[in-house]
C-alpha cells in the first residue's frame, strides 16, 4: 500500500508541476493579448447600479454584535439599503487575520475574481497588501479603499478614517464626571495595542483630556491586550484595572468584554464602536461610535456615477461619520448631558480643539504641534501619537 500511496503522491506532485508550468505559459499569453490602455481608470467610468459589485474584508465576524466589525458591517448594510443594491452585489469576507499576509492576499484576490469594482479593507495591516494590488497594471479599474492606514496612490487607492478622538473626548467628559461623582480619581483603559499605535494611543489621550477637563486630578491607567479582538484578554485586563481601584473603564478593543466586566464589578465604562448599553445597561455610560455607512454610501455612489477620486477621507462629527452614542440616563452623573452638549458645540464651532498646544507627555516633555496655532496636524494625529499624555500611565 505504501508503494501505491507513493505512486499516487508522485502523480499528484507531477500534476502540480505541470499545471504550474502551464500557468506560466498561459500567464505569458494573457499578457500579450491584454493590450495596455483597454482598462478604464478606476472611478472614471459610470457603472450601472445593477452591475456594481462591492467587496469587503473584515477582521472578525460579521455576526458579531457590538464591536468594530459590527460597526463596519452595519455601515455596509446601510449603504446597500440606501443605494438599493441586492445582497449578491456585496461580498463580505470575515475573519481575515490582518497579520496573515497569505490570508489577506487570498481574500483580496478572491474579491477581484468575483468581479468586485470596489474593495474596502477595514483593518490596519491590510494596508501593504492593498497597496500592492492597487499598483498592479491589470487592476487599475478597481477602487481600493483602506481604513485606518496612511498609504494611498494617486490613481485607484485611498484611505479613510475619522476624527474618532472628538467623540472620545466627549466620552471622557462623561467618564470624568462619573469618577468625580464616585469621588475616585482612578480610571482605566483597555487598549488593543501598545503606545506605538497612534490610533489607540491618540484615543486614550483624547479620552484622558476629556476626563481632565472636568476632573483635573484624575488618572488613567492603561492595560494593553496586544490584540484587536480578544474578549477573554479584554475581560482580564478590565478586571486587573478594577482590582487596581479604577471605577470607570474606557476601551479600544473590539468586543464588549470591558463593559460586561465593569458591570459585574458594579463599576462603569465607556464602550467603543457601537452603543454598548444593551450589553451592560447598569455600567455603560456612552460610547464613541462610528457611522461607517456615511462613508460607504458616499464612496460607492461616487463609483456608480463614475465620479470617484483617489482622495483620502478623514472626517468627523461634522458629517456624522462619528458620534457619541446616547447617554445612558441610568448611569451618568448629573450634569453630564449639559457638559457634553457644550463641548460638542464647541468642537463643532472650532472653539475647542482636542489636541491643542497645551499637550505634555507623561515624562514631562512638551509636545510641539505642527498644525495651526501649535495644535497637532492631522498627520501627527493619525501617525505621530506614540506617547501618553500627563495623567496617563501603564498599569
Amino acid at each position, binding site marked *: 500500500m505504501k508503494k501505491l500511496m507513493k505512486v499516487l503522491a508522485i502523480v499528484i506532485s507531477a500534476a502540480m508541476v505541470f499545471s504550474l*508550468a502551464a500557468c*506560466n505559459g498561459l500567464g505569458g499569453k494573457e499578457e500579450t493579448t491584454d493590450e495596455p490602455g483597454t482598462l478604464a481608470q478606476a472611478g472614471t467610468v459610470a457603472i450601472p447600479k445593477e452591475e456594481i459589485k462591492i467587496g469587503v474584508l473584515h477582521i472578525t465576524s460579521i455576526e458579531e454584535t457590538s464591536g468594530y466589525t459590527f460597526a463596519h458591517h452595519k455601515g455596509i448594510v446601510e449603504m446597500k439599503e440606501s443605494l438599493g443594491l441586492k445582497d449578491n452585489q456585496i461580498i*463580505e469576507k470575515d475573519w481575515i487575520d490582518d497579520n496573515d*499576509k497569505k490570508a489577506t492576499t487570498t481574500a483580496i484576490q478572491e*474579491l477581484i475574481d468575483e468581479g468586485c469594482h470596489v474593495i474596502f479593507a477595514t483593518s490596519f495591516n491590510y494596508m*501593504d497588501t492593498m497597496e500592492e494590488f492597487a499598483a498592479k497594471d491589470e487592476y487599475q479599474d478597481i477602487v481600493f479603499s483602506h481604513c485606518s492606514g496612511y498609504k494611498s496612490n494617486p490613481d485607484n487607492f485611498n484611505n479613510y478614517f475619522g476624527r474618532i478622538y472628538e467623540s472620545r473626548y466627549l466620552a471622557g467628559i462623561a467618564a470624568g464626571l462619573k469618577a468625580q461623582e464616585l469621588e475616585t480619581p482612578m480610571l482605566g483603559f483597555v487598549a488593543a495595542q501598545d503606545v506605538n499605535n497612534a490610533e489607540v494611543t491618540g484615543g486614550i489621550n483624547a479620552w484622558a483630556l476629556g476626563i481632565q477637563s472636568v476632573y483635573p486630578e484624575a488618572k488613567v491607567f492603561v492595560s494593553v491586550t496586544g490584540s484587536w479582538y480578544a474578549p477573554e484578554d479584554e475581560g482580564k485586563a478590565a478586571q486587573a484595572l478594577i482590582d487596581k481601584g479604577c471605577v470607570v473603564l474606557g476601551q479600544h478593543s473590539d468586543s464588549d468584554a470591558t463593559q460586561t466586566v465593569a458591570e459585574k464589578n458594579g463599576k462603569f465604562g465607556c464602550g467603543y464602536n457601537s452603543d454598548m448599553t444593551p450589553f451592560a445597561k447598569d455600567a455603560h455610560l456612552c460610547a464613541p461610535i462610528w457611522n461607517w455607512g456615511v462613508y460607504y454610501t458616499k464612496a460607492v455612489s461616487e463609483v456608480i456615477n463614475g465620479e470617484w477620486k483617489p482622495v483620502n477621507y478623514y472626517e468627523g462629527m461634522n458629517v456624522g461619520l462619528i458620534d457619541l452614542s446616547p447617554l445612558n440616563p441610568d448611569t451618568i452623573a448629573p450634569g453630564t448631558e449639559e457638559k457634553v452638549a457644550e463641548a460638542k458645540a464647541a468642537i463643532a464651532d472650532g472653539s475647542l480643539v482636542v489636541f491643542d498646544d497645551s499637550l505634555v507627555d507623561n515624562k514631562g516633555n512638551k509636545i510641539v504641534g505642527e498644525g495651526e496655532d501649535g495644535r497637532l496636524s492631522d498627520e501627527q494625529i493619525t501617525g505621530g501619537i506614540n506617547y501618553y499624555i500627563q495623567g496617563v500611565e501603564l498599569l
Partner: protein
Amino acid sequence: MTQTPLTKKASASEAPIRIAKREGLSSRRAILLRLLTFVMAIVAGGVFIAAMGQNPIEAYKLILRGAFVGSQRNPLSSIQATVIIFVPLLIVSIALSFAFKMKFWNIGGEGQMIIGATFASYFAIFHSDLPHFVLIALMFFAGALGGAFWGLLPTFFKVKFDTNETLFTLMLNYVAIYIVKYLETLTSWRARAGFASIKHFEDNAKLMKIGGVHIGWLLALILIVIAYIYLNHTKQGYEISVVGESQATARYAGMNVKKIILRTMLISGAICGLAGMIQVSGIDYTLSTGMTGGVGFKGITVAWLAQLNPFVMALIAAIFSILEKGSGVMQSTLSISAAATDVLQGIILFSFLGGEFFTRYTFVFSKRRTDK
C-alpha cells in the same frame, strides 16, 4: 515473548474490549480503508453543510472551484493562491518529520519559522543594496541559520539536562512572536512611527517567481525528494530511525545519540527557518507576527497523517490547501460565517484522524474464558 501467558491470564479480568495494533493488513485493504475514510470525511462534512441549510454538493463544488478556477481576467489566481498555502505547509511538515522520526517532539515549527524569517529580514531591511542573487542567497542562509538556532536551543537543553522538548519548543514559539513585537517598536525596523509594523522589503529582496508563484514551490518539490532519500536511503537517515525506535539500541550499536539528535534538530529547525524566509521574501514582503499562518501546528497533523512519508505529506498538504483556499470562497459565496468553514475543516480532519485510527488499530473483544 515471555509475557504471553501472563497477559492471557490477565485478560480474563481485563475490560471486555481492548485496542490492539492491526497486523498483517494487506496493502489493498489498507488503501480501501483509507479511501473509505476519505469518503466518510466528505460525507460527515456534507452532513454539517446540510445542517446549515446548504446543499452539500454545491458547497463542495464551490470549494473545488475556489481552489482551482480563477476569474476570467485572471484564470490562474485561484490555483496560485492554493499553491501559496501549500508551499509553507509542506516544507514545515517535512521539517517536522525529521524530528518526529527520531521521536523528538518538535512543536516549535512556528517559532523556528519566525526566527528564520527574522534573520532573513535583517538582510532584506539593512542590506537591500546587495546584488539580487547575493542578497537572496544570504537570506536563504540566514533563514536556515535562524531556524536552526531556534531548533537547537531546546535540543541543547534536552541532551544536556534532559529537559522536556515538547514544552520547551512550544514556549519558544511565544518568545519568537514577542521578539518580532519588540522589533516592531525599533525605529530602524519599523515602517513608520505610530504604527506597529515592520518595514516593507525592497523589490530586490523579493523572491523570484516561476509561474506567477514564488520559487518556493519548486524548492518544496525538490525537498520532498531530498527528504525521502535522506530519511530512507542514507546512513544518517537510518541513524535517526534507530534513535527513534530505541536510544539504548542506538547506543549499543555505537552511535553517538546526542550528536544525532543535535544534527537532526539542526536540519529540522533549518528547514523551518527556510520556510519562514520563503514566506517573508516570497509572499509577505515584511516580517509580522502572523506570518506563519499556523503551519507550524498544522504541519504536525500533516506529518503524522502521512506517517512521515514526504510524498504522502505532499498529498495531504495538497488536500488541506485545497480545503483551506476553497472554503474561503464557499464562505463568501454562500455568505455563511467563516467560523462555520473552520468547523467544516475540523470535521473533515477529525474524520481523517478517526479513520487513521481504525486503519492502524482494531478492537479486540475478549471472550469469556470457559476454563473448567
